């Protein structure tokens, strides 16, 4: 499989990395001077860590698609390719003879914030705009008071990664069909539609009239005492929904007097905001003295969903991640890979991100 990447944003570059990790041959087309993500931090030894993360296992050619000769070279690359993945605005694509639907023999995937049919001026939306347009920011974090801003999520690129998974899925499925039928496919990924789809069990019930939508920031919330708490050496997350969880937690805390005053079935039948607040006031004073690993291990044995809020440092040294090989080392550099361990065709990092135009000769 040969995939050409004209994408220049995180969503497209990530979609292609997912496919490259499965073993597709990827030729990344970069503008003269290099891809825009090469200029995005944080940097290490003069290189963008973001670029290196997104572009391992790829080859690079430099093409100025505004020039006829370079544009013709892209056509030659496309002639031997199976798929093209792009994430530019539709008007950019049209201006470079890459309009969506104009390459019927290929699997041609275009990722845009709102999908091909949306007003052109909306297609400049960035990840924080997509997270807000799609509803997750409005409801993040849970229980946010009305006077605090909605939050974009974790890091800078959550909506890009979500859209990237969707694009990779559709491209892989369409390439599978193409192997059998020889036919191409034009795929139109909407970053905002991906955000909505991820909320199907919550927003979908409101859409169908089974639950009430509303302007409140808490409309996606579940109620209950689940929340993050400061502990002795970091934070833990507690989710508690059943009598068994409650009994387990009480035992873990040594059955303090305040806890025995709560009805045994309060989580199921008497979970009022007042009671949740009272629980948290007491629990906070206990959990703040507990080290997170020890209390989480004890909680797991007691059947209580109380877990560590892990940092990047915790994950880098995590025994389960190590066992599964989530990080793959290449020349001493640890790459986060994929959450799926595949017994017959495992994901493999075999090449660092390329230097700009490193494969120019090969392409020509």
């Amino acid at each position, binding site marked *: 499989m040969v995939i050409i990447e004209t994408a220049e944003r995180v969503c497209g570059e990530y979609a292609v990395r997912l496919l490259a990790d499965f073993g597709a041959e990827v030729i990344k087309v970069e503008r003269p001077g290099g891809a825009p993500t090469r200029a995005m931090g944080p940097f290490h030894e003069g290189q963008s860590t973001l670029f290196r993360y997104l572009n391992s296992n790829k080859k690079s050619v430099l093409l100025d698609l505004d020039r006829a000769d370079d544009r013709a070279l892209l056509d030659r690359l496309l002639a031997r390719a199976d798929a093209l993945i792009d994430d530019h605005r539709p008007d950019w694509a049209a201006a470079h003879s890459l309009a969506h639907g104009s390459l019927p023999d290929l699997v041609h995937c275009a990722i845009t914030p709102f999908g091909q049919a949306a007003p052109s001026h909306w297609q400049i939306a960035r990840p924080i705009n997509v997270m807000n347009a799609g509803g997750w920011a409005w409801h993040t974090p849970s229980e946010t008071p009305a006077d605090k801003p909605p939050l974009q999520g*974790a*890091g800078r690129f959550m909506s890009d990664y*979500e859209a990237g998974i969707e694009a990779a899925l559709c491209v892989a499925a369409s390439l599978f*069909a193409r192997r059998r039928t020889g036919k191409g496919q034009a795929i139109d990924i909407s970053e905002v539609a991906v955000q909505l789809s991820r909320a199907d069990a919550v927003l979908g019930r409101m859409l*169908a009239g089974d639950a009430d939508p509303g302007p409140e920031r808490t409309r996606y919330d579940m109620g209950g005492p689940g929340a993050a708490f400061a502990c002795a050496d970091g934070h833990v997350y507690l989710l508690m929904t059943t009598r068994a969880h409650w009994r387990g937690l009480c035992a873990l805390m040594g059955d303090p007097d305040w806890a025995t005053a709560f009805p045994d079935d309060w989580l199921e039948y008497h979970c009022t905001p007042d009671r949740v607040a009272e629980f948290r006031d007491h629990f906070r004073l206990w959990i703040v003295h507990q080290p997170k690993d020890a209390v989480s291990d004890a909680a797991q044995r007691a059947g209580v969903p109380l877990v560590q809020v*892990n940092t990047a440092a915790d994950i880098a040294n995590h025994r389960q991640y190590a066992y599964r090989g989530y990080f793959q080392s290449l020349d001493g550099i640890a790459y986060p890979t994929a959450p799926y361990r595949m017994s017959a065709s495992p994901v493999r990092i075999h090449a660092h991100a390329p230097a700009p135009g490193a494969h120019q000769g090969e392409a020509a």
Partner: protein
Amino acid sequence: MNRTGPLAGIRVLEITKVWAGPYTGKLLAFLGAEVIKVESRANLDEMRAYGGVDIDSAPYFRSINQQVLSVQVDMKSDEGMAYLRRMIAMSDVLIDNLRPGAMERSGLSYDAVRAIRPGIIQLSIKMYGTDGPLGYQTGYAPCFAALGGLNALVGHDGETPAGINIRYGDSTVGASAALAIVAALHHRETTGEGQFIDLSAVETLSTMIGDSLFAYGLTGDLPRAQANAHADMAPHGCYPCIDGQWISIAVANDDEWTALVKTLRASALGQDAQFADHASRVDHSAELDAAIAAITITHDADTLSEALLMASVPAYKSQSSLDLIGSEALWSLGAYRLVTDARGDVRPVIGPGWRMAPDEAPIEKGAPLLGEHNAYVYGDLLGLDEAELADLVARRIAY
């Protein structure tokens, strides 16, 4: 069942519950696969029970499981298991998200399954994966987000990082699983070989911050929750508008800044020395956020969003559930679809993140009634006649 779409001709059996596993099945069905959900009244997907008494019209279940088929099999009986093995023998993919060890206890370890159907792709979703030192542990989506490193990066300034909304996570896990399955279909097409796919929900959520994990490994600088701040943009955040609304704005360069100042009619901001160039705006982002908020507070978020976008400033209203459902734009862009269930009920549902042509699988059927496709599976696929199926129903094998 004749379907179109890129995965037409692929048959998937799912033994799944709640959200992540069913979401995988839905995405594959939306791509044209024939997805059969194995269910039993004796061991019901709890989503059929939440929010109502009628297991065939449970809101949670109906909001996820569109376009999949339902067959009843009592997996606790030997006879039921014998029929299930016959279904496996006719399938390309088997998915589960049961508790660790449950498939093995039912005699459905990968070795057992591939003995029934060589070349099958079996995918199992577990909190921490199938084995390893913590493989026995179980949990829910907010636990995945905490353990996976995602929640530590979400929080307002100066507060305990509260994490992303409590509902987030399961669907992302399901989508990642669907991708791995299609990759395995390619491998099978090339080699004839099936495989076992062992998916970790916790690691899936780590991939949502993969760049941060990678950067930490190289630089040693621990990433932390930064609210809406962005190292390369300012203003970058959510700003209050009238009536409790908020607007998101992301400015990356001088052109966008100039257009923002002009659209907001904020010439004083444009002349303020601490905001004179991009670097100084990033350096003074807290002051800038406060200054922008003082202006946006008098604006309507929709109107301002449209004006900013027209001026080439990336912006969008922060949409509530009410905004999302009432959005004419989202309806007209096809984000929502109408499906019909076996009772003739028409229901709006959330469509997938894609459109495709020329070979898009239609999305038209609502979530199945329990056992709605018993006749198709036991009859058309396994060759039982009506009397034999009626007997299975009467003896609660198809239950």
